[in-house]
């Protein structure tokens, strides 16, 4: 304020500025038709929320007709649904970081498979040598998650150092990670050679007695909170949105775009690593064939959640809703006999409808 007063005083001395303050600029909002105004007044998350309501409504109607509604609307089923969604959920948080920054990661499913195989190989190897369950478990989890981070960093370096499109780099990683997983597993599904550790059973059970939901679900919610804080309150989050919104501007403003991207891909790799550990515990195996098509579910969850594939837009809240939508559909198909084709058609329809709604909300001109 002091500065403002000084300037006005200066203006007064020179007499070059006749008005004490500039007139306000015109309201930038262009006039729009009534239905568009209605759309624009809806909260940003209304698209994914409406999608979830729609899916739940369809599920309730179909299951009511099937006579399965009583089993669907139970705490037990909610626990199962959330447990089954936790792998997709954790991987979606990593994908959100990448998509917001204008990238894409097609390697998620293959890296999850590689993580399960590496974790199992390391566990069996260490168990044979050390015999300490704690050290063995820590070694297996650390190795699995390190593989996730390493794959993420390789993706990030491929995008920044080789200057290749994220689609190309991660498509390559999709194939490399799957190939490595099959090779390391010796073309078979690996099992525990000795006794299964207790933590695997704890993570793998859908219905926890003392904590209401499975630990994997709580880990998803905790990580969602961490990613939300990162995106909203940290410099890395701000740069993530800036790079996705306009990379040239971010560069012009002195942001180290390359380093930020590598960090984001690395963080996403860490989340994919944890998703792999969850899948390892759910399946109690090192399965080189697991996670096929997971990347598409993860991308769909993030896009349904309101993120833009061209970058600059996306929220953790929307992504959670996207994961829930996919979870309800998967749950209805897996346990209640809803035809699988209904799931695929609804996912496609929701992706398109939600993106169209988002466009209307932001104005058709965008």
């Amino acid at each position, binding site marked *: 304020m002091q500065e403002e007063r000084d300037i006005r005083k200066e203006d007064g001395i020179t007499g070059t500025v006749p008005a004490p303050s500039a007139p306000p600029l015109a309201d930038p909002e262009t006039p729009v038709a009534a239905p568009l105004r209605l759309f624009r007044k809806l909260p940003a998350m209304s698209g994914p929320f409406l999608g979830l309501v729609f899916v739940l409504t369809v599920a309730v109607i179909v299951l009511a007709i099937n006579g399965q509604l009583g089993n669907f609307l139970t705490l037990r089923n909610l626990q199962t649904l959330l447990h089954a969604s936790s792998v997709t959920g954790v991987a979606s948080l990593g994908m959100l970081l990448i998509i917001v920054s204008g990238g894409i990661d097609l390697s998620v499913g293959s890296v999850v498979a590689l993580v399960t195989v590496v974790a199992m190989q390391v566990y069996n190897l260490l168990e044979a040598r050390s015999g300490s369950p704690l050290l063995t478990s820590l070694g297996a989890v650390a190795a699995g998650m390190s593989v996730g981070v390493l794959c993420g960093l390789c993706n990030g370096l491929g995008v920044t150092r080789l200057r290749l499109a994220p689609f190309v780099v991660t498509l390559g990683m999709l194939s490399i990670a799957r190939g490595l997983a099959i090779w390391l597993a010796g073309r078979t599904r690996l099992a525990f050679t000795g006794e299964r550790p207790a933590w695997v059973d704890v993570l793998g059970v859908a219905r926890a007695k003392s904590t209401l939901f499975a630990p994997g679900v709580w880990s998803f919610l905790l990580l969602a909170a961490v990613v939300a804080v990162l995106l909203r309150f940290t410099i890395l989050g701000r740069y993530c949105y800036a790079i996705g*919104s306009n990379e*040239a501007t971010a560069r012009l*403003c002195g942001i180290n775009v390359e380093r930020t991207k590598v960090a984001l891909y690395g963080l996403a790799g860490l989340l994919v690593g944890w998703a792999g550990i969850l899948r390892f515990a759910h399946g109690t195996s090192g399965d080189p064939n697991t996670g096929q098509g997971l990347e598409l579910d993860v991308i769909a969850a993030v896009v349904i959640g309101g993120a833009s594939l061209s970058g600059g837009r996306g929220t953790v809240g929307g992504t959670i809703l996207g994961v829930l939508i996919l979870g309800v559909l998967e749950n209805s198909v897996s346990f209640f006999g809803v035809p699988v084709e209904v799931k695929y058609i609804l996912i496609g329809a929701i992706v398109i409808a939600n993106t169209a709604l988002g466009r209307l909300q932001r104005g058709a001109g965008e």
Partner: protein
Amino acid sequence: MSESFRLTMVGIHKHFGPTHALRGVDLELARGKVHALVGENGAGKSTLMKVLSGAVHPDAGHMMLDGEPYAPTNPKQARQRGVAMIYQELTLAPHLSVEANVLLGLEPTWFGFLRRAEGRCRVREALAVLEHPEVPLDRPVGELGPGMQQLVEIARALLLDVRLLVFDEPTSSLARADALRLFALIRRLCDRGVTVV
């Protein structure tokens, strides 16, 4: 002699392949004055201003800014020395808010966390200097009109303690009323000692 000028350019040459875009250009820009660079299409106006703002490196010649050697290797370095260019195609992040755009690259932080109150205060001060405190800080820039978007760019330059501001055809995308406001704003910037091209 050169110390009395904000910026001097001496003997600037620039080739683009066989094209000799700048042939020994000398330019002196005075403090707190508005300068207009006029010339035909292809005369080299844009190239000269890009040299000034660090986007293009000259093949020969030298520059002095406030009596000190000035040879930016990129726009970021030029901005850090107080030389900013407002391009015809504005360089904003449309999804980010006004506040985030003005602060971009200069965010005050504490161990990686944004110090939002301090940042907001600095943006408010910059907009107050421009005498446009009505600009909504939380609105995505992509939703603003061209006049306000240009204001956000200028506010960003002010945050860097701008000494020399280069506009590339600033009124081409503005309505007449917004253009008049821009001229008044340029006069106010000059009164603060900013050199404008």
